[in-house]
C-alpha cells in the first residue's frame, strides 16, 4: 500500500499576537487539531470562512509554517524530521500557488528568471521552448518571459504563479485561491488544465478556494474549515447536495448565483 501524498495528524498552529487579553493572551489558535489526508491522484477541496485557517494549514502542508503540534507527512515522510536534502526534495515534489500572486513573486526578476530559478534550485535545466510551452499552457504568450511582475495584470501574474508551480511536474500542488483573479473564461481554461494534469499524470491537489461552484466541479472530496477546525468532510457531490454542518449550509446559502431574479 502506498502512503497518502499528504497526511496531517492532529496538527495545530498558534500565532503570538500583540496585546490581547482573555483567551487571546496565549496567542491565536489559527489551526486547532486538524487531521486530513490527500490520497495520490486525488483533488481535495478546502473551503471555509475567511480567517478560518485555510492558508495556514496549506503552508504547514509544505513546510513553510512549522506546526505548534501534530505531524505532517508528505509521501509517508515526517516533514519535521527532514534534513536539508529532504526539505529540498519536499519543495521539488510539493509545489505551492500562493494566495497573493504579486507578493509571492520577486519584483526584480523577469518571468523568465523566476521560472528558470525553479529549475536551477533543483539542479535541472530548461530551454526557452519549454518555458514558452509552459506559459502557453496557462494562456500567456512568449512576450511575458521578458516582463517584470509590475508589467502584468493581476490575472496574468496569477497565471505566472500557476506556471511556476507546474514547472517541475510535482506530485502534489497546494493551490491557495489559484484562480481568484481570473475572469471566468481564463479560469475555466486553467481549471481544465489542472484537471488534465490530475487525470493524465496523477498529480494530487489541495485546492483552497472561496468559490464553492469551482470546488464542487474540480474536487473529489471537500473539507470545510471553521475557526481552525475541520467541521465536515465528504465527497464533493454529497457535501453540496446535502450539507450537514451549519457552517457549510451557511456558505452554500450565501453563494450568489449569476442569475437575476425574474
Amino acid at each position: 500500500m502506498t502512503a497518502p501524498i499528504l497526511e496531517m495528524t492532529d496538527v495545530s498552529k498558534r500565532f503570538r499576537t500583540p496585546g490581547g487579553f482573555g483567551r487571546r493572551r496565549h496567542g491565536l489558535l489559527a489551526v486547532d487539531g486538524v487531521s486530513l489526508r490527500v490520497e495520490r491522484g486525488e483533488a481535495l477541496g478546502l473551503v471555509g470562512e475567511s480567517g478560518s485557517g485555510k492558508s495556514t494549514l496549506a503552508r504547514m502542508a509544505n513546510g513553510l509554517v512549522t506546526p505548534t503540534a501534530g505531524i505532517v507527512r508528505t509521501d509517508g515522510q515526517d516533514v519535521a524530521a527532514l534534513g536539508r536534502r529532504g526539505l529540498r526534495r519536499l519543495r521539488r515534489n510539493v509545489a505551492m500557488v500562493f494566495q497573493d500572486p504579486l507578493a509571492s513573486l520577486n519584483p526584480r526578476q523577469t518571468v523568465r528568471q523566476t521560472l528558470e530559478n525553479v529549475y536551477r534550485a533543483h539542479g535541472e535545466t530548461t530551454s526557452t521552448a519549454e518555458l514558452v510551452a509552459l506559459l502557453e499552457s496557462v494562456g500567456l504568450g512568449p512576450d511575458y518571459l521578458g516582463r517584470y511582475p509590475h508589467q502584468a495584470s493581476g490575472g496574468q501574474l496569477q497565471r505566472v504563479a500557476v506556471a511556476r508551480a507546474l514547472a517541475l511536474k510535482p506530485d502534489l500542488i497546494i493551490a491557495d485561491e489559484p484562480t481568484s483573479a481570473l475572469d471566468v473564461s481564463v479560469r475555466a481554461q486553467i481549471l481544465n488544465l489542472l484537471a488534465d494534469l490530475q487525470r493524465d499524470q496523477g498529480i494530487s491537489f489541495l485546492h483552497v478556494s472561496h468559490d464553492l461552484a469551482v470546488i464542487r466541479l474540480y474536487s473529489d472530496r471537500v473539507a470545510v474549515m471553521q475557526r481552525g477546525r475541520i467541521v465536515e468532510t465528504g465527497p464533493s457531490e454529497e457535501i453540496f447536495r446535502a450539507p450537514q454542518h451549519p457552517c457549510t449550509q451557511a456558505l452554500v446559502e450565501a453563494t450568489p448565483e449569476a442569475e437575476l431574479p425574474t
Partner: protein
Amino acid sequence: MPDPVLQVEDLSISFTTGETTFDVVRDLSVTLDGGRTLAVVGESGSGKTITGRAIMRLLPRGAGARGRIVVAGRDMLAADERELRRARGADVAMVFQDSMSALSPYLDIGAHIAQAVRLHDPSVSRRAARARGVEMLERVGIPEPADAVRRFPHEFSGGMRQRAVIAMALVNRPALLIADEPTTALDVTVQAQILALLRELQQEYGMAMLLISHDFGVVASAADDVLVLYAGREAEYGSLRDVFEAPAHPYTAGLRAATPRLDARLDTGGERTRLRAIPGAPTSLRDAGPGCAFAPRCGLAGQVGERCVVEVPLRSRRTSGTTGGAHRAACHLDRLPSSGEIAR
C-alpha cells in the same frame, strides 16, 4: 439633473517601453451618476485596473492617458499634484486588487487608516484618527477591532486584509469608489456582508461605484449597469438586465457560458463535468489585427465573414434595450443567435 460623478471621454492609455509605445486601452467613454454602480468585467489583461488607476491619476511609470476624465467636477488629467491630493480620498478612492501590496509591512492596520484620515484632513488628532480606524474595522466586520488595529498586515488572513483596505478607502466617504475585485479574497458570507455594506454606504453618501469584478454572481447582486471590456476596448455596455439576459456581444455570451453555477445539475457518470472555456487565448490591443480583437476566438465570425478580420466593429445601439437605457455592442452582427445556437 445633477452632473454625473464620473465622466470619461475617449480615454486611451498607452505604455512606453524603450522605443515602442502601445495602447492598452482605446477610446473608452463612460458616465456614472451618484448612487449608482457600474460593473466593469472583462478578460484578464483587458485594461480594467489600468483604467481605474487612470481615473485616480495613479498610473505606473511609463504609462500615459489621453482623453478626458472628470470626477466630481474636477478634470483629473489637468489637475496638479495639490489638487490631486485633495481629490484622492475625498472625491475618489480605490480598493486595489492586490491588498497586500497596498499595505506597508511596517505599519499596523490602525496606522494605515489613521494615515488616510489625516492625509485628507490634517486637523484630526492622531488619537481621533486611530479611533476612526477602530470604528471602520468594526463596520467592515472585523472581530475585536480594538485589538485588530494593532496587528500588522501579515498577521491578517487574506480576507481580513481585504476588509481593512476597504475600510481605508471608505473612511473619507469618497464621492466615487473604484473597487478592483473587492471581494475575491473573501468567503461568500463575508462577501455578502461587504456588498451589503457597500450598498448601504452608497445609499447613505450617494456614492458612485465602479466595481471591477470577474464574478458574475457579484455583478448580478451589486451592479446597475455593466461595461464589458475586451482587449482594451468596450465590447458591450448596458443595464445589468440587458447584458445578462440579452448579451449582444459573443464574448459576453461566452463569459456567461463559462460561469459555474452551484445549483447546476451535473451528470456525474464517468468524466468529471467541466466548465466551458472560450477557446483560444486573449489578445492585447497591440497584437490584435486590423479587425475585431475577439474574431480569432469567436464562434460566430464565420457567419459574418471577412469583415470581422479587416474592420473594427463600431459600438452600435441594440434594439434589445428593455430597460430603456442605452445598450450597445461592438459587433458586426446586429443580433446574436439565442444561447442554444451559440453553445457549439
